Structure formats: C-alpha cells, structure tokens
C-alpha cells in the first residue's frame, strides 16, 4: 500500500507537470478577466497538489477536466474539436487521497464537477453582433489608419528620394523598402505592446498631419474613424480597450455547477456522501471593478464523530449567500485583491444530538501574491454564541 501511495503521488505530480505545460498553450489571455472567486469554482485544465508532505496527514489531490482526460486519450485533434464545448472544458473528475506519515491511505474520495450553466466562457459563447461589431469596427479602423499611414509615409519618402540626384534607382528602391519595413515594424511593436506612444516619430507626425487625415478619409469614410485617430494619437490601443470591455461583460454572466463527491475512510470503515451546488453571477458598471453574487448549497451525509461505530447521523444541509468584490485590478484588468462577504446557515437533518442549526457571517479578503498564488484571510462571526465582538477566527492559506 505504501508503494501504491508513493507511486500515486509521483503520478499526480508528473501528470500535473505535463498538463501545466498544456495550460500555457491554451488561449488564456481572455481568462484574465475571471475573478479568483470564479476560478475557485472551476478546474481550468488540471490541478494537482500535495499538502502537508512532511506532516502526519498527507493529502494528494488531482482534478482533471474532461477536456484533459479526452486529450490524454485521444490526443490534440480531439482537444481542438472539444475545445468548443464548454462542458468538457469546465467539468472535471476530482480525486483525493489522504495518507498518514507511513504513507498508508487512510481515506480516499472521488467526485465530479459538472457545469450546468456557464455563460462566462467567451470562447464557447457567441458574442452579440452589436458587441462584436464594435470590436470589428475598432480593428478595421486601426488597420485602415495603419495601412494608409504606411502608404503616405512611402509617398513622402519617395518624393524626398526623387530629388536626391546622388542616388540611383536601386538605392532609392532599397531605401524605400527599408522605410516601409521600419514603419510596419513600428506599428507591430506599438500594437503588441498596446501603446501607440511607441510609434516612430515619423508616424506620429503623420497622424497629426491634416493632409494625411484628408488622404485617409478619401479612402475610408467610417463614422468611427475620428475617434480611432484621436485614440491612437493619445497612445490608446482602442481595439484592445473595446475587446476588454466585451470580455468584462462576459465575466459578469452566470455560472452554475454541481459537485457530487463520495469518500471512504478505510480506518473507520466509514463512507461519506456530499452534494454541492454553486451559482455565481456578476453585476455592476463595466467602468468599475466587478461585483459577484454567489449562492451555494451543500448536503453532507457522514458520521457523527461522537459515536464510535460507523454511522450516517451527521447530515448537515448548508446554504450560503454572499457577494464578492474585486478591490484591485492591474492594467490588464486582472484581479489582484478581492473581498467576499457571505452569510451561512447550516441545519442538521435527522436525529442528530447536539446543536441543530448554526448561522454565521463571514468575510474573506484575499491578495494575489504571485501569479496564481493567493493569500486569503477569513473572519467568521457567530452571532448566536458570540460575545460583543463575536467569535473570530483568522486563517491564512496559500493556494489557488
């Protein structure tokens, strides 16, 4: 059994490493708009981990999305086909092994995360024609400015070269070629860095040249062109701004998942059954950091630990309702700090001896420490049993 646990641990780590490489290959930029709260609910592709490696209770975890399982079995071709199916991407198989310090497996659990509704995934939901039309108009305007600015610059360079009698035809062609390549590279650099202050001084000068504006408008009479020109002159990457606004709208749409889990404690020969449901949806102005409403329900059938033999007398039904607010975002609209406030009511179903119900108010503030690592601090208040300040417990865990 010890060998199985060790091998299992290595397999989990190894598969985690393999899929971690695949994660970077997935189109991820748009996912940056998801809050940490949303990412808590879903497995992006694969998650694996070992907790408390040196302690008495060692915990091995593996969550594989159905897409990851499918790509493991069928390779990348199937992945591409299935990539469109949100259910495969966001539903997962979750395995957990709990071992002791001698690497005996004390407890195992297996469960599923099933996506019932996911309107947040912009990759699998069709963007409305109005919103998509704005994105397309912004990219068309940008491209039009770029195309005619380069053509205008070539005309200017060509005229200058024409009056330089020291140059022959081949030299002129070479210099013109060079000027065009440099202009296109300058646009590529500014576009990729999302900062049009990086455009070359020649191109910035052209953008402010009234003769160029006339030249451009003769070729393109788009009603949004003036805004596109003034944005570019101000250094603003308008296609990205419009695109991010659409992504923000999607980040506010609803997500509902169901999670059935079965566990078995080998030591006490005790089973445990858990059914969870999580719903979240965003709201609030697109101009401000997002709010999220969250509701969850959980029903556990497990052991009453005051009874020594195996039993199923502990059956808490828990409801939770709360809100999550992004406090800080970076320049790419990625969440960096979040505050969550939620109330929780738990009722013990059946003939449980002891306190049957519990109501608590909870708040969590979490800070993004580095990449996917978050530092959450949770404060719990039990108004029924608490004193003036209530009962507070503060925990800090590092994890996704």
């Amino acid at each position, binding site marked *: 059994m010890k060998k199985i646990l060790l091998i299992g641990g290595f397999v989990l780590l190894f598969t985690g490493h393999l899929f971690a490489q695949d994660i970077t290959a997935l189109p991820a930029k748009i996912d940056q708009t998801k809050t940490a709260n949303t990412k808590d609910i879903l497995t992006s592709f694969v998650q694996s981990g070992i907790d408390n490696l040196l302690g008495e209770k060692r915990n091995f975890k593996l969550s594989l999305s159905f897409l990851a399982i499918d790509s493991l079995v069928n390779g990348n071709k199937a992945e591409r086909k299935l*990539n*469109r199916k949100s259910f495969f991407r966001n539903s997962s198989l979750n395995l957990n092994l709990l071992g002791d310090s001698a690497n005996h497996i004390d407890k195992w659990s297996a469960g599923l995360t099933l996506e019932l509704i996911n309107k947040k995934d912009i990759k699998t939901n*069709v963007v409305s024609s109005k919103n998509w039309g704005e994105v397309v108009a912004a*990219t068309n305007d940008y491209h039009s400015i770029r195309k005619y600015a380069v053509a205008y610059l070539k005309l200017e360079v060509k005229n200058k070269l024409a009056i330089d009698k020291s140059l022959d035809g081949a030299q002129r062609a070479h210099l013109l070629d060079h000027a*065009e390549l440099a202009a296109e590279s300058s646009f590529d650099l500014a*576009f990729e860095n999302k900062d049009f202050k990086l455009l070359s001084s020649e191109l910035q000068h052209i953008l402010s040249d009234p003769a160029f504006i006339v030249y451009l408008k003769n070729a393109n009479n788009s009603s949004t062109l003036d805004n596109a020109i003034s944005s570019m002159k101000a250094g603003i990457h308008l296609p990205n701004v419009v*695109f991010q606004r659409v992504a923000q709208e999607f980040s506010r749409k609803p997500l509902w998942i169901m999670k059935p889990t079965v566990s078995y404690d080998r030591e006490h020969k005790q089973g445990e059954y858990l059914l969870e449901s999580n719903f979240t949806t965003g709201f609030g102005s697109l101009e401000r950091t997002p709010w999220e409403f969250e509701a969850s329900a959980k029903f556990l059938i497990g052991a009453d630990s005051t009874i020594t033999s195996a039993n199923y007398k502990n059956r808490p039904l828990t409801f939770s309702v709360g809100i999550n607010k992004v406090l800080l975002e970076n320049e790419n609209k990625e969440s960096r700090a979040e505050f969550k406030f939620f109330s929780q009511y738990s009722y013990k179903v059946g003939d449980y001896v002891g306190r049957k119900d519990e109501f608590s108010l909870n708040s969590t503030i979490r800070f993004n420490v580095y990449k996917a690592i978050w530092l959450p601090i949770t404060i719990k208040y039990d108004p029924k049993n608490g004193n003036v300040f209530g009962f507070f417990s503060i925990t800090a865990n590092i994890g996704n």
Partner: protein
Amino acid sequence: MKKIIIDVNSDAVNNTLNVEVIRRSDDVVVFHKLLEGDFGTAQIDVENLDAQTKYKIAVWGATTGKIELSISGDIQDPNPIERELEEALDKTFFVETNH
C-alpha cells in the same frame, strides 16, 4: 504564375479575419478575403502572383480564442511563416515570390 497558401485554424466561435495581399512596389491590393464566425480550418489560395515580386500580407480582425496562421507556397524562404494570433489582432508579413 506563383501561388501563396495561407492556412488558418481557429478553435473559437467568434472570429473575424481579414487577409489582404498587397504588391509592395505600388501598394495595389491584389487579394482580399474575409473569414467570419466558427470557420475551424480553412485554406486560402492566393494565385496568379508575379514571380520575384515582393508582397505584403496583412492579417487583421479579432478572435475570442486563438487563430493559428501558416503561410507557405512559392516564396523564397522555403520555411512557412507560422504565427498564433489572439484577441484584437493586426499583423503584417512580408514575402517574396520565387523564380
């Protein structure tokens, strides 16, 4: 006459991709193609191009996933140009047709 082959591949349901081929000597657009929506894989053949001529291939649009692009055919560099594009996109490639 020479031919350029542009292979595109996308996993996204929201795509707008313009492909324009311009003869660099005189900025004349010799080819324009628009692909929209869930196009999956597509091959764009740009035919009847002149030999030993420089062309600019402009690619722009937007995607909510990823668009893989590969440019090959009768071009002087035998290695196809390959690139992945995401989000709002605009990229220019330079090729010269062979003898």
